[in-house]
């Protein structure tokens, strides 16, 4: 230990200098979701429980489909950022990296699956 220089000991332990970008991304998506979430609750809530034909017809309309699509894209983006910080706080080492990869993959997969479903319903 006595042979390590101060620089060598400090390297890799500092800020990655991307914290502000992460914070701003969460802020922008949170403001967007402040608008989208109430719209989604009342559009999705209105059609949940309806028969198959009614659901398909409802999501073939542009406004409910756009609200659902935007909510899924922005929502999963916001989830990805938030869950990443949760993992960084409590999981360390290789497990941290694996968990962040898993959260990222799940988020994009769910986003893509939801948008694909909405496009199929709209066309």
């Amino acid at each position, binding site marked *: 230990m006595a042979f390590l220089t101060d620089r060598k000991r400090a390297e890799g332990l500092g800020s990655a200098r991307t914290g502000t970008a992460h914070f701003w991304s969460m802020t922008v998506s949170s403001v967007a979701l402040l608008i989208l979430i109430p719209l989604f609750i009342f559009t999705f809530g209105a059609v*949940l429980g309806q028969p198959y034909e009614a659901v398909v017809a409802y999501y073939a309309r542009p406004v409910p489909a756009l609200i659902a699509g935007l909510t899924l894209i922005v929502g999963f983006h916001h989830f990805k950022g938030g869950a990443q910080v949760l993992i960084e706080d409590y999981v360390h080492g290789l497990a941290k990296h694996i968990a962040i990869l898993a959260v990222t993959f799940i988020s994009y997969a769910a986003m893509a699956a*939801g948008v694909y479903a909405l496009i199929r319903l709209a066309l």
Partner: protein
Amino acid sequence: MADVNRGNRPLSPHLTIYRPQMTSMTSIFVRLTGNALLVAALMIVWWLLAAASGPGAFAVADGFMRSWFGDLVMVLSLWAVWYHLLGGLRHLVWDTGRGLDLKSAYAMGYVMIGGSLVLTLLTIIVL
């Protein structure tokens, strides 16, 4: 050579040391609700995919969604999403430099708890 005394320095107190307070608990629940909402979000994606696939697949997903378990997840998630939204609103207020004193933090905490319950009940009544 600086600081050879590694691993023996005073640490900042962590979650396990603090007595639970309303401010810390409302904050912890923002994180909890945000992450727990993944379950409902994945169920909704499944439900939409099933609707896009056809009546057979939709019957399965819709049946699960409207079962007692699906209802439980949806009602808890409805509360969670309103709570998380109000918690996010509190963060947006704090980000402007306002409401950082103890009195305002407590007031906003009570608004989050009461407001999320009222909004959940209103949503259930309206829908």
